[in-house]
């Protein structure tokens, strides 16, 4: 049988190409939203495959953990020596903490505040994989809506802030790391040493230096290297007081009006295996 040759005029070919590009970009602009909720079929497939992955990866994870434990064992004496003075202070710090909590509770009762953004409980989770399409800036964890995880919940690891939940399935959640250059939802931070406290915004993450860049600080403000950077609580998503990192370099912008601060994050974004989701506490009625 002879094949029919379809001849399309060049002007129509160009139109078809342009139309196809528009359709593709429109579909992708919808699909590439990180907070896109998967439909039931997609959720089912993702939950099933991640369950299989967890079983398959278990032996690898076991070996990697054992190697990490062995390395940790070698450093344990050095760490013990450095932590000894802190351990001696821990009783007095605990007593101070209890007293402060009491005072805070009393003040909340006085002001009739039943809920603040800082009222949360920890839900531990394991990282399953990293999102390849967004260039490893999103991680998938093994806790989902079944465990009470919801979009916009904050995720931390043992060192400090990691990111926030952007979408969930029944048994998994996607977490956008703070290394993502998000031009719309910038994270508000407080830079603080013993004397001063200044607010700024995380601008982006430099992949070469591995520093977060903080902007929006006037050049007249005094900031010292080594100052702590933590969430300010402004913006309503991130609770205040979660450690992000320490100040490493201070430079000024091209007009000499604002400071640009390089912050060395306390969390190692190349090695995130275990995290905790900060679940909001139920409001007491």
């Amino acid at each position, binding site marked *: 049988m002879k094949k029919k040759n379809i001849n399309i005029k060049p002007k129509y070919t160009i139109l078809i190409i342009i139309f196809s590009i528009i359709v593709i970009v429109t579909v992708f602009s919808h699909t590439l939203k990180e907070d896109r909720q998967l439909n039931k079929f997609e959720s089912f497939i*993702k939950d099933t495959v991640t369950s299989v992955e967890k079983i398959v990866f278990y032996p690898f994870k076991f070996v990697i953990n054992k190697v990490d434990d062995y390395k940790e064992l070698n450093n344990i004496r050095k760490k013990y020596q450095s932590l000894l003075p802190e351990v001696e202070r821990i009783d007095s710090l605990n007593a101070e903490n209890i007293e402060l909590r009491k005072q805070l509770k009393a003040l909340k009762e006085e002001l009739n505040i039943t809920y603040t953004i800082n009222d949360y409980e920890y839900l531990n989770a394991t990282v399953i994989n*990293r999102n390849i399409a967004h260039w490893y800036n999103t991680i998938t964890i093994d806790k989902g809506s079944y465990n009470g995880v919801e979009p916009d919940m904050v995720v931390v690891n043992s060192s400090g802030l990691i990111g926030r939940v952007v979408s969930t399935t029944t048994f998994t959640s996607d977490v956008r790391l703070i290394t993502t250059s998000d*031009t719309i939802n910038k994270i508000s931070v407080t830079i603080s040493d013993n004397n001063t406290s200044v607010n700024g915004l995380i601008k982006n993450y430099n992949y070469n230096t591995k520093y977060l860049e903080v902007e929006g600080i006037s050049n007249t403000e005094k900031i010292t290297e080594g100052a702590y950077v933590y969430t300010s609580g402004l913006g309503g998503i991130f609770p205040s007081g979660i450690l992000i990192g320490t100040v490493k370099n201070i430079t000024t912008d091209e007009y000499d009006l604002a400071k640009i601060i390089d912050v060395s994050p306390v969390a190692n974004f190349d090695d995130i295996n275990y995290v905790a989701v900060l679940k909001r506490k139920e409001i007491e009625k």
Partner: protein
Amino acid sequence: MIVIIIYTIISFLLDGLLSNYMSINIIDPSYFRTIYSIISLVIIYNYFDNNTKYLKILLVLGMFFDIVYTNTFLLNVVIFLIIYLIIKKINIFIPNNIFTINLKSILSITIYHILSYLILLLSNYHNYSIRLLTLILSRSIIVTIIYTTISYLLLKKIYFKIYDKKIK
């Protein structure tokens, strides 16, 4: 066929495993990051006489890749299809050997990242710098060569030892 499917599944799972778990302190884990599923598609292409079966594997792999690793819909299916068309054209002119298959793998990974970069740039509100693109591309080269070479040699040995013919 079963050998090819097992190899594709292993590559798919490696994408998840090595995207996060390879955290050895001596080596930066980003040096282990490439897209193993795409390398598997480049390698298995030569084992098919029948393109329909190959395309079925490609579509299923793309769909699973979309749902499990990227939370997207059709994105990877389309990119995988574009890579398939390019590999198909290249295969007409360039014969397959260990050197050319490595080049094809690197080319496919590069196309994938450049296409994702362009799509992210056109449709997303995040700033993805060209510096990050070059960083990811340069860091994926070594592991792409290692995985392609191992897969090519291993699959050639296993497949032709058992079947000694292409998939019809």
